[in-house]
């Protein structure tokens, strides 16, 4: 029994159908409690009540990057091992990632207005998230432009690989271009830079919730994609017969 067994559509459908409700419930509980707990935290001595947006902003920004990484892994699995579910999972993840990127950008702008006095700043971190959003758009557009599923899966897989390299390059190129206003990573292992535990624990809970939410959404969307492929396959067989 290897992990690749779950790349079989039938097994994937059976397993995902069983875990999906639990993942969804877990996501709802974690996000709801994380946000409520986060809302009840005391105002920061410097940032005031605006700090509370991090319970949305940080998890969304984290997911924006990690979803792209997941798509890259899924694309590689598809291109190397030809597991069809993997290609569909990458396709299913892309719009979720794009929305997460958008949430990160919008919440960032809402927070930036009172803090930096501007809705948008060409800061390296903001800029690289915007660039990532452009890559998501291109990826989604390429999937929807191609009728043939096999061709689309291969082409988007290659786009994801080349796009990852250039998104990574852009990430460091913008550092060269503008030093920026944004604070460093919110969660750091270096002592002294750590966020107070008051904020940290609800943030962890919210991040876990976003992770589970992503898992639930990807499972739902992958299941939809599988059903859609099955329908297309039945129609193709009907036409051929």
């Amino acid at each position, binding site marked *: 029994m290897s992990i690749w067994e779950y790349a079989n*559509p039938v097994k994937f459908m059976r397993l995902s159908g069983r875990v999906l409700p639990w993942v969804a419930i877990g996501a709802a509980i974690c996000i709801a409690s994380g946000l409520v707990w986060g809302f009840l935290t005391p105002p920061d001595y410097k940032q005031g009540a605006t700090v509370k947006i991090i319970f949305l902003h940080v998890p969304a920004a984290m997911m924006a990057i990690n979803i792209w990484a997941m798509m890259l892994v899924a694309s590689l699995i598809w291109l190397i091992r030809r597991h*069809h579910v993997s290609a569909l999972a990458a396709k299913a993840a892309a719009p979720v990632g794009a929305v997460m990127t958008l949430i990160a950008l919008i919440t960032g702008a809402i927070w930036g207005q009172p803090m930096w006095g501007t809705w948008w700043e060409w800061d390296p971190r903001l800029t690289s998230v915007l660039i990532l959003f452009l890559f998501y758009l291109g990826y989604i557009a390429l999937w929807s432009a191609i009728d*043939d*599923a*096999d061709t689309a*899966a291969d082409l988007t897989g290659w786009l994801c690989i080349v796009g990852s390299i250039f998104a990574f390059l852009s990430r460091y190129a913008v550092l060269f271009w503008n030093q920026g206003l944004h604070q460093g990573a919110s969660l750091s292992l270096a002592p002294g830079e750590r966020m107070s535990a008051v904020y940290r624990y609800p943030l962890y809970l919210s991040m876990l919730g976003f992770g589970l939410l992503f898992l639930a959404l990807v499972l739902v969307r992958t299941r939809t994609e*599988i059903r859609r*492929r*099955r329908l*297309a*396959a*039945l129609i*193709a*067989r009907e036409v*051929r*017969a």
Partner: protein
Amino acid sequence: MSLLSVQDLAVARGGIRAVEGVTFAVSQGEALILRGPNGVGKTTLLRTLAGLQPPVAGTIEAEPDAIAYAAHADGLKGALSVAENLRFWARIFGRDKIDASLSAMNLTDLAERPAAHLSAGQKRRLGLARLLVTGRKVWALDEPTVSLDTASVGLFASSLRAHLAQGGAAIIATHIDLGLPEARMLDLSDLRAQPGRAARPAGFNEAFA
């Protein structure tokens, strides 16, 4: 000795196997004619033989760079003259003599004319002259006689016969009689793929059927 041998080949179109269990071999001087109704998979089979798409199953054995492929589109540039078009393909295939091919397809008088001004039949003849300059042993031809008049079909048949006589071979998908009584026939309608007994799916449409 066989120039091309195919064992238990299956080819797919649109993620579904079209034909399977195709087995044949062509030796020097042999021609094989593919038959079957529209959509059975003749073009797909020829493209697979030419290496443009991977087979779903089975093996294709041939010397490297043995197969010359010619399809509905002739790969001509309207802005270039007939001779320029042909010389380009000759150089791509590492050769430089084009005069014999021009005269074989009765194009010598048109050599300096831009390809854009050729009629459909003349274009087709130029496309077939391209086969001659490749110098390859096995021709894989997809409907080579489309838009040719009777005289040109005769011209094509004679150069095909000359190719076979020189130790070449040909696999041709066609509906008309080329006047090659010695050519073997392979009817693909008997080899239509049966749904749902593949060890490995050919594409999404089979993986999820």
